[in-house]
């Protein structure tokens, strides 16, 4: 029996197959839609795919040091906290006539305010039935900038003490017949006070301002079209910059962000890249084998 199937040849087939599969898996991962809040490649309701068409993004807060604060609107929305170093960079950015719009999970907002020297406390989710649209979108009016705003799942916070170097004021409330849903059952219960609740704050630091929205969604895909007017007012003479620095904690999201252009990635490009990589691998192997 001719021993024509050598061990050496089996070895090359196996790693090439594994590499091919891994590349295929990676390419599928890159092409497939991702469900991640406040992520520029998320086309779902909580993503930023719509907003990313009109703005740029930074993958590190440190990049803010290089931008012109007076011509930039920084948009930050997160589920997790900012590092203290990042807060310092943001403060520096605001002080130089910067403008920032911030919203996200209640604990993130409270933590951010605390790091600025504002003693804030999360009171609960606000329900405003008469101004609520589908998907828990609540309509408010901001007199200060003369614009409507649509907030997804708003909540309210109490401000107790403020650092003397900054000033803070409430610039928008819910209607006078809204209530704090203390037990989170989505219904009004006896004892839940009917009142107006602050949901938008304006913080002044140096010559810059921070607009704090107590809501989980403001410029996310589900409401960004409704908030175009608000965005245009805030973007006046400024360029919108989205914070995507939190993505660095997730290697796959980070890689995806690197690989994808603003126009999106084509599966054909990935397929071509995979084929080229495999061919190069085979030829390199053959070349080494010959030597």
């Amino acid at each position, binding site marked *: *029996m*001719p*021993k*024509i*199937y*050598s061990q*050496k*040849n*089996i070895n090359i*087939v196996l790693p090439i197959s594994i590499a091919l599969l891994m590349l295929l898996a990676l390419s599928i991962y890159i092409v497939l839609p991702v469900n991640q809040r406040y992520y520029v490649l998320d086309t779902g309701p909580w993503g930023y795919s719509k907003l990313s068409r009109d703005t740029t993004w930074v993958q590190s807060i440190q990049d803010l040091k290089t931008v012109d604060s007076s011509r930039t609107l920084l948009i930050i929305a997160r589920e997790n906290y900012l590092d203290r170093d990042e807060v310092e960079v943001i403060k520096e950015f605001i002080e130089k006539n910067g403008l920032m719009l911030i919203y996200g999970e209640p604990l993130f907002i409270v933590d951010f305010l605390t790091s600025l020297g504002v003693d804030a406390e999360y009171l609960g989710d606000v329900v405003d*039935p*008469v*101004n*609520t*649209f*589908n998907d828990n*979108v609540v309509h408010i009016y901001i007199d200060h900038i003369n614009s409507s705003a649509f907030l997804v799942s708003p909540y309210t916070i109490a401000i107790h003490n403020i650092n003397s170097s900054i000033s803070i004021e409430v610039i928008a409330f819910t*209607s*006078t*017949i809204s*209530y704090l849903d203390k037990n989170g059952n989505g*219904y*009004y*219960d*006896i004892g839940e006070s*009917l009142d107006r609740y602050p949901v938008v704050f304006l913080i002044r630091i140096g010559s810059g301002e921070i607009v704090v929205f107590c809501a989980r969604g403001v410029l996310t895909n589900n409401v960004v*079209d*409704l908030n175009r007017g608000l965005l245009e007012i805030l973007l006046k003479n400024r360029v919108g910059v989205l914070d995507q620095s939190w993505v660095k904690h997730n290697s796959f999201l980070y890689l995806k962000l690197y690989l994808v252009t603003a126009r999106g990635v084509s599966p054909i490009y990935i397929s071509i890249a995979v084929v080229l990589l495999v061919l190069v691998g085979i030829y390199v192997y053959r070349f080494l084998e*010959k030597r």
Partner: protein
Amino acid sequence: MKKFLVITLLLLASSTLYAYIYGENLSRKQVDDCTYLLAVLEKTLNLLNTNPREAIDIVNKMMKTNIAPALADPHRKTYETLIKLYRVLFLGNYSDTRDVYELYIGIDSIADYVNRLRSCSRDRDAVTAIATRIRLILDELRSEVEMLMYRIAMLREYISLYIEDKVYEPEEAIPIEIDILNNSCIPRTASLILSGTTFSYSVFTCINNSCYTSLKTPSTTQVKNYVNPGINRIAVVIKVQCLGREVRVYRFINVMYRYPEVVLEIPSVVKRGDYIDIAIHSKDDVEGILYVKNSTAEVPIKKIVLNTTSIHVALHVDKPIFRTGINIVKLCVNATQKTLPKCFEKTVFVEPRYPRIEVETSSTQLTLFGKATLFLVNRDNATLIASIYIGGRNIYTVYLGPGEEKVISTSINIMPIYLEDVKIAVRDIQNYYDTYIYTASITVANISILLSLPILGLVVVTVVNEYEKVFIVTIATNMLRSFRKAVEITTVIKTSVKPYILGLGSRIAELYYSVVKKFSRLPHDSETLREHYRYTLIPVIKSTHVKELLWRFLVLVEKDLYSRHRQDIEEAKKIAKDILSEEH
């Protein structure tokens, strides 16, 4: 014209598309939280006194709110009334007393809305406090509206109206006297109006400047759908013709409507088959119908006329009127001229009465063929029907005459030991008793099977013992054969696909194979290249030179495959080229 049409169509299409894209995502959420609506109403009513502007803001918001369809109409009426209240009471914006009177009626619609919200609230008890507070506010508003109507009448100074301020009974006369203050005024009519319906009407008779008439409070029968027990406020509307136009003057009188006082006495516990004595009397002359309400139906029993004399009704506690457990004896009396209709209820607990039957069985039974046995004895004077259920299925139904005994056996079961769930439902033919249910779980041992199994086992072992070796060998041989066959098939498959999966491992070998393929078949997995050369290639190749070239090629392949050093592919290509050119 065509251009205009096209532009219009384009505009229409684009606006539809815009509405589709943006509109579908923006629809107001429907509000159906009754507790919330009740709380908002209370807040609005409170703000009407303290901060009317904020109250009107809320009213405007609530008018635009998308309310659940079931509540939408009363909701709208309520907030429309609140706007009227604001205009009339706070802005003094009304044309005449009729506007104010309509407002008075509107307050009743708010009370109705409150009742509806309370009934649809998730926690009715918790919202009772809010509903009560709202009712108190509404009572105050009613008084304010009444006072306003008085003030309007007084200000105009057309007439002086005298109606005795007391609590009237149903069907009581209400004398009305008017002194004309303005000579141009002529009193025309007096009406008694409740909830927009006129119940009494009369014309004034005048002597000089004094006019008289009399109305009669409506009987309870007339207003049973409009009034509540207790004091009810009913409007007296006087129409006066002054200076060529009709002027209306409103007054409110108190009329007491009440329920009859009925006493219903029944024992709280009775037994099936007994007679229940129901004693009823009333301070008022009323008539009504006696019902018995059980868990499934409400059965009218008889018509009853009541007065102060106590009457007794004896009812047989029989099926289907009474069911075992809680039953309700209900007396619903009709409205009379003096009293409102009402139902009076008392509960009675009916204890069951079962047929006298004895069921005997043991929980463990040792049987010959696996048939469980039950023993039934009818101790009653009536014929009884026993339905036997095994494992939930009705297997037998047997009749037992008075004093009769029966032995029931279940069917044969081949299991050596098993558990039989037995249920027996016993009832009487007359359906007089409640159904008696007997349940038992019987462990049944089947001696025949228990004994047969080891015997059968022994027989089989004895019979098979001699053929044991043959049996094992047969099985082993067949298995080995099957295994070999399977290995062969997989080897064939492996061999055929191997070159495609793994390649030949040598480019020189691949070239050799491609050349050999021109002459004959490729080497099998079970032969060497030399065997293939000798027995397959030599017979088909005529040229000696080609044979030599092929031999050189074969040696080159072997060296490339098995030697530590790789051979020169160019040499192989040259040999291949020579062979092919020679062949052609």
